[in-house]
């Protein structure tokens, strides 16, 4: 959430004040992500209450493997780091390197989604088997939707940060920064999700 266009403090008394619009957009995005986070918070609360209050019927199956999600966690954490690297290169106007790291991030995102799909297909329970299972799919599915959206955004950002021809430049970093903030957010949600769903 850095300001791109420097604010000219002196010109504020004039009627035409130069202000960074991008700054507000990042602020708005942050507010939106708080709202989005509250949706997840609601889901988490529901899941934890189900776990605390509703015992699993004796014949119901709800077992999770730890290996795959741990790899997934590593993938997502790594992708946050690579995205950060990409945006650092953009600030140094090294668009080529920025694009390379963006591509790595996108690949990590795709890998995460693939691995998540693989997990879905190998799990011993389905969506409607019991409420633990339903909440598991609802939570991971809703998160997966976020990751999918993020991955698509990364591909767009990747394409737009080509040099020459791309729209994303050192002067117009907002799309990249917004995607990065969003990506970190999705990543953070995953960590909470991992702890609550898999470790607890």
């Amino acid at each position, binding site marked *: 959430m850095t300001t791109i266009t420097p604010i000219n403090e002196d010109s504020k008394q004039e009627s035409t004040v130069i202000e960074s619009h991008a700054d*507000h957009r990042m602020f708005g995005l942050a507010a939106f992500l708080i709202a989005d986070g*509250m949706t997840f918070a*609601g889901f988490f609360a529901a899941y934890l209450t189900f776990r605390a209050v509703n015992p699993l019927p004796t014949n119901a199956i709800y077992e999770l493997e730890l290996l795959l999600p741990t790899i997934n966690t590593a993938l997502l954490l790594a992708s946050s780091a690579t995205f950060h690297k990409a945006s650092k290169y953009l600030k140094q106007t090294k668009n080529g390197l920025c694009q390379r790291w963006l591509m790595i991030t996108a690949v990590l995102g795709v890998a995460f989604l693939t691995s998540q799909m693989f997990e879905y297909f190998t799990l011993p329970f389905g969506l409607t088997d019991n409420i633990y299972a339903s909440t598991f799919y609802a939570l991971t599915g809703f998160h997966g939707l976020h990751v999918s959206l993020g991955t698509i955004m990364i591909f767009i950002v990747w394409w737009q940060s080509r040099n020459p021809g791309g729209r994303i430049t050192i002067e117009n970093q907002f799309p990249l920064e917004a995607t990065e903030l969003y990506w970190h957010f999705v990543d953070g949600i995953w960590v909470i999700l991992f702890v609550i769903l898999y470790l607890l």
Partner: protein
Amino acid sequence: MTLANSSSNSEAIQKLQPTGWMKYISFSLDHKVIGLQYLVCGFIFYLIGGALAGAIRIELTTPISDFMPRDVYNQVLTLHGTIMIFLWIVPVVNGAFGNYLIPFYVGARDMAFPRLNAVAFWLIPPAGLMLISSYFITGAAESGWTAYPPLSITSPAAGQIIWIISVLLLGGSSIFGGINFIATILKLRQPNLKLMQLPMYCWAMLGTSILVVLSTPVLAGTLILLSFDIVAHTGFFNPSLGGNVIVYQHLFWFYSHPAVYIMVLPAFGLVSEILPVHCRKPLFGYTTMVYSIMAIVILGLVVWAHHMFTSGTPPWMRLFFTIATSFIAVPTGIKFFNWVATLWGGKISLNSAVLFSCGFIINFVLGGITGVALAQVPFDVHVHDTYFVVAHFHYIVYGGSVFVIFSSIYHWYPKFTGRMLNETLGRFHFLLTFIGFNLCFAPQHWLGLNGMPRRVAEYDPNFAFINQISSLGALLMAISTLPFLWNIIWSAFNGGIAGDNPWNALTPEWLTSSPPPIENWEGNAPLVTEPYGYGTINQEDLVEPTPESPSEESSQ
């Protein structure tokens, strides 16, 4: 002040916008146009919701279910609740007045995100039309605006799903609006304008928007889970599949209790703007008013389970929520005493705006007192889900918010249109509304205490007489809309010319022409650091009131 790197751009866009009345049905980016779009659209839905309320009251004039089929009755009460909350009060007290006033109050030329703003408005008409058309196509939802499962899962699915989609759209609209208000108030404020110099409505909207952003998404998530239960046959809230219905209630009320504050906090803000102007006195206790808004916001997030005292919640939870809820009375009480102190020693113009605001104070105090009573578990266990509760929340949302909406229309109509409303009709409107409202809802307290549950189409014949009185009140309320409608339509063409500042007010929206130009001020935005400086700011600086201004002929 404008955004230089986008101002030429936005001017170009403004030029492409339709002018004249056409702009009100276009994708306009002007915050004033959007504000009025919200207001008019909300008012149309209010008339529809009011007609539904009329149908309910007609059904209840007799103790048997004879006016409409029982399932239709449930659809009508569901639509009435949903429309009045999500399509009338929330969009109008937040969207309409917020969009119109907040940019003025912070000294900006538009909202922080004009495009998002227009999107937020244009989500409302399709959502509302979808909701209403569901009645004609598939039958509307039948499970009340609370949509408690398992009733909402077992009742006809099509109407319920349409209901969920509409509420999700409206929730999205409200979240976008909330983000926009927070960004506008915090980020678009004039650099020399301190937060503690803002008009009270800004604080109310800031608090409300925080509530919107924190709680609406939880409702959205909950409704998505509910729709899974209906469509995909998952069992989150379906006990026959091992689900838990109480979890839905917790998640639902986590939004829907703050929703009450989303409806009344902006109303508090609007009253705080209206009273000082017509009393010619500064708002009493500005600082405590600000803190009490923030206290209500914080407390408002931790009181939801008082709607669930009979749902089998454990004793410790009941105790906690009783205490938390009771304590909301403290900041609320402070606000009411401060308003009375604002009236005290003023030179009050007894015009329609003031009458509606004072009607609000009286109604809301009663609603607040019954609210504190309802927060007490042993009391609530008897009257929960009865007409006592119906009376209570109508005193809050109608006696509170709707009275303030009317008051605000009387106050800002000259700014919106450049013309004055007719005062005589306005006072007549107030009198009819006030009497009708109290006649309609005060007897319902007794009904609830004596054994009439809410949401019923048939009841004990002993209650018939009181119900008929209540229906008579509803009839008066319906009639009271007529002078108002006539007034706003007639005055738009024939009302006296208002001039820039008919009330001699000090808040920034009055320091420009009526109606204001596209970017709010011809020249620089004025820096208003004392929005309530009545009695201290030199009178010669202000334009004398025009002779036909109602503030002069008030005392008759």
